[in-house]
């Protein structure tokens, strides 16, 4: 959870910093390439995070969800 909490935000912040650094220019080719690759990876991470937020809509009564979880936990304990 903590890891999820920081993933998007951290990636986005780092990505912004990288873009700003590249835009300022004056970096060596090696460094530019390294930053570019990192930036492209971060971009993918961010985009994946957006997709990961899509999912089912479960609407359950309290008892039903309790029962469901109970059953699942019982199954996994066997």
């Amino acid at each position, binding site marked *: *959870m903590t890891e*999820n*909490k920081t993933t*998007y*935000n951290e990636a*986005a912040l780092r*990505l*912004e910093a*990288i*873009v700003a650094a*590249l*835009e300022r*220019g004056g*970096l060596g*080719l090696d460094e*530019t*390439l390294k*930053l*570019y690759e990192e*930036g*492209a990876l971060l*971009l993918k991470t*961010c*985009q994946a*995070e*957006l997709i*990961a*937020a*899509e*999912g*089912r*809509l*479960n*609407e*359950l*009564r*309290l008892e039903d*969800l*309790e029962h469901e*979880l109970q059953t*699942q*936990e019982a199954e*996994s304990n066997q």
Partner: protein
Amino acid sequence: MTGRAEVTTGPLAVGQFVSLVKRTLSHEPMFQRQSIKGEVSQWKSYPSGHTYFTLRDDDGQLSAVIWKGRCTIHPSIKEGTEVVVTASLDVYVKRGNIQLIVERIEPVNTLGAMEEAKRMLIERLRHEGELDRVRMRPPFVPKHIAIITGAGSAALADMHRLIDNRWPGMRRTVIGVLVQGERAPEEIVRALALTRRMARPETAEKRSEPPVDLVIVGRGGGSPEDLWAFNLEPVVRAILASPVPVVSAVGHESDLLVSDLVADVRASTPSNAIERCIPVRAELEQWLDELDHRLEHAARRTFGDARQRLVSLHARLKVAPLAGINAAKRTLLAQQSNLNRATEQRFSRERTRLAGLEAALQAIHPRRVLERGYAMTQTEDGTVITKAGSLAVGQAFNLHFVDGTAEAAVTDIHTKEE
């Protein structure tokens, strides 16, 4: 309004008239779910489960009815108890009586006791440092929201609508609970316990869904009593025990609830909770697209610049040897011409010298001497005679002149020593 039309056509049946009164009164918001304070009298519970009484004070009174199971009745309520009821006005058409339909009844002293309990709870939480604890920040993009609220409530519908506007198809689990009444606190606590379990990666994995990373617990507005569950210690403790951020989203404006004080995020309404915690997906996508473009552009520019430099270097490198050779050639030519010039000068100097020498030679050539009137003497065998002493009297010798030779003989000799 139909009633008025009937009046013009003839007298109205009294039943119709009372029904009209009932309808009119039930459309008046002032008379719906109103909080009213008074004293209980003629308290009577029937085997049917309904309870009838009169709510009164020194200035007025009104019949009241509590339908079976409609609300919890505090055991301390009896003849003469000061109570606050939440009730709506109704007309009992058969008898033409107006009466209060009670949805909630609390003795005033217990209400006071509840306020006191709330104050003490806040005090305790403050003392424990829970009010100043570091709040968890909701995830920027929640992957799995748990919503604890009344099943089928207007608040839930509002939340669904807002979520789908901002982030269509965002993953969420709604846990329907009672949000008011006797059982509300217990159900909310149980629901929070479920979200704790669903926040565990192992449980989430079994359910093939991401762990719950945000909990919204709330309901729409209501009377202070309706919202009271959110002031109770078990609910508050359950919020504090959450491993993931909890948003307290109870629709109310004035009173602060204890759940608001301890939650990670306090939202003024359920809708406000969504607005505060769910980003607008289209905006994020647009922003990422922009960053994508800027990243590409910036990198390309740097590489473009470098390539340009490389191209220009390459061009310079290609012509560099030629330039060197050309320079060498030029130097060589210059040297050559220098050399030539030097040689030339040398030659001309030599020529001049030679000419001088030739002139000198010319000047000392015997012929020149002879031309000037001198003669050269030679013995008969050709030896040049330079000294008189080398001759003997009677010796024959030759005299060479410019135009020919004469033969002569020595008649006498006079040397300078004599």
